């Protein structure tokens, strides 16, 4: 019993770190741009697909994909921000929400048409195959790698935004863009790069996910609901909040799967409802 439980908790941690990585990008974009990026799931799917296409048609392996894919997809994000999203600045966030939602539907539709629904398998890279028997469970090496990388990237992003000069500019830009621009900072460029970074994070998570899950057009919409819940529970736009909540919710979900599996897809939303009742701004959010 205890053995199974500790295994479930470890799996919860793995999934949780994954949620954290995904919700981080969402939180960065919302926190700094005030945009609810509904295309996040589609951009995550795009990351997985770009990696798969690279491997299948250009022979680009996992390690290169890990570097190149976020760059490519992030760049697409920047172009999208420049051409479309920027025009909605200053309007109600609902508009950018609808725009990004539309983008998500278009992207998913295109990939579904081109690749079908069952998707494709992406092999686990040779160096990360196999695993270790921990006694209470068999831990695949790749999953351990996911936890390590996710937590490193999360910590790195938090550090840059909260503790460095660049991060200070970013935060200042959110509070008062006009004033920051008066100091000679190129605010529009900064916003483009921030959006690009958030999108790149989603794509990065996509590449990380490709060897575990089937690379399918709907992989993003399957996970994005939970990720949104994570961001809401953590407090919209709070970076620490999304990281801590991501890991925490992974654990709660893992426990539910063990205790009463059929409830595991609802438990996240039950937690969300409770948190919103008690702390409307989320666990780490500030009341605006």
């Amino acid at each position, binding site marked *: 019993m205890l053995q199974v439980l500790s295994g479930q908790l470890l799996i919860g941690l793995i999934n949780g770190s994954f949620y954290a990585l995904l919700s981080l990008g969402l939180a960065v974009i919302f926190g700094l741009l005030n945009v609810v990026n509904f295309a996040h799931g589609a951009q995550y799917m795009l990351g997985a697909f770009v990696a798969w296409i690279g491997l299948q048609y250009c022979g680009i392996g996992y390690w290169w994909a890990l570097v190149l894919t976020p760059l490519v997809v992030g760049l697409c994000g920047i172009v999208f921000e420049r051409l479309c999203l920027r025009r909605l600045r200053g309007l109600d966030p609902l508009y950018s929400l609808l725009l990004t939602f539309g983008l998500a539907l278009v992207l998913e539709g295109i990939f579904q048409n081109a690749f079908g*629904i069952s998707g494709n398998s992406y092999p686990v890279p040779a160096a990360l195959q196999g695993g270790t028997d921990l006694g209470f469970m068999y831990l695949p090496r790749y999953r351990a790698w996911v936890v390590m990388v996710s937590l490193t990237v999360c910590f790195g992003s938090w550090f840059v935004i909260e503790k460095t000069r660049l991060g200070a500019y970013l935060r200042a830009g959110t509070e008062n863009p006009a004033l920051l621009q008066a100091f000679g900072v190129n605010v529009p460029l900064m916003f483009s790069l921030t959006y690009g970074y958030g999108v790149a994070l989603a794509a990065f998570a996509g590449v990380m996910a490709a060897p*575990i899950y089937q690379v399918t057009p709907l992989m993003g919409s399957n996970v994005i609901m939970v990720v949104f819940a994570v961001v809401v529970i953590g407090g919209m736009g709070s970076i620490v909040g999304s990281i801590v909540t991501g890991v925490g919710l992974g654990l709660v979900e893992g426990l539910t799967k063990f205790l009463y*599996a059929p409830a595991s897809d609802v438990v996240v939303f039950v937690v969300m409802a409770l948190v919103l009742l008690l702390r409307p701004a989320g666990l780490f959010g500030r009341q605006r």
Partner: protein
Amino acid sequence: MARIVHNLFLTAALALFAAGSATAQITDGVVKVGVLTDMTGAYSDLAGAGSVIAAQMAAEDFGGKVLGKPIVIISADHQNKADVASSIARKWFDEQQVDAIADLVSSSTALAVMPVAAEKKRITLLSGPGSTPIAGDKCTPYNVHYTYNTYAMAAGTGRAVVQKGGKTWFFITADYVFGKSLEADTSKVVEVAGGKVLGDVKAPFPTTDFSSYLLQAQASGAKIVGLANAGADTINAIKQANEFGLTKKQSLAGLLVFLSDVHSLGLPTAKGMYLTTAFYWDRDEASRKWSKRFFERHKKMPTMVQAGVYSELMHYFEAIKAAGTDDPDKVMAKMRELPVNDFFARNGRIGADGLHRHDMYLAQVKSPEESKYPWDYYKIIKTIPAAEAFEAPDPACPLVKK
């Protein structure tokens, strides 16, 4: 004068009416079939656009006409939602004179549409769904359950696996009507064959991450982990079972695996797995010939569901032709009367309960080395005769004579 004109009209009307009734075998002058399927969701690869293409091929191969009236194929996406399916069906029946609805992949949509069709005396030709209650307590007089059901899957794979020494089972089950029906049917077969079910876990549908459930399956110590799910769920479960090393000590039994699943998993992951199927494209000359034509249009080899849509529609058109009318009662009687023997089904008979009993096949997925050409995926291990493949008529269905 007015009187003459009036009489003239009356005569003309009567003449038209008489002429009409003489050739009124086909009401409204067209045989319209609606393919209601999952165009974009989890089952769109195993049914979806391929089912629509199969239906169009059937219409064309039948000459585009039956009893001199054109065959029209229309299609819609039910999104795997029962309410969407039944409202489209109502609209089709009430406003668009649809005579029959084909496919209805995913049992919940089939169970929602069947009573609507029965109430309006229209025919449902199911290829995609698998629940046994469709021909059991939920049966209707205007329904044909054509391709497979969960019992046939369970009996084929379950029995074969137990006979090969897989005595203890644990189930990972999709938490809805189809998954539960599949698990229940398999459990029955396993126990009858001398095996034992150690436990199960009901995973929400759809699930992407199966690691928790796989861990529970490992902890159960069962030799066989039965996957009572379908489509993307099965694919992810098999993939992750390999990742978690489950396949080292235990074996997987995919209880409903389609060709499209194996294609997307790839042979290195899927190799060695047993499965039951109603149809395999490479089984004989006739199946190859049809499948290659299908491939030219769809760029993928047909699944059993898609081939089933073609075959059931051919049978439906044949029945209309033989009955000389599209009157649903007479067509249904003919469909039951005529045997099915084509590239898809051997020794097929449609029973009073609407279930089409035909030969099934136990197959094993080839290893990458054994596969010689694209889509060369299955070895047919044995043919399961119709009587063994399907259960006897369920007395819970009121149409079955007791």
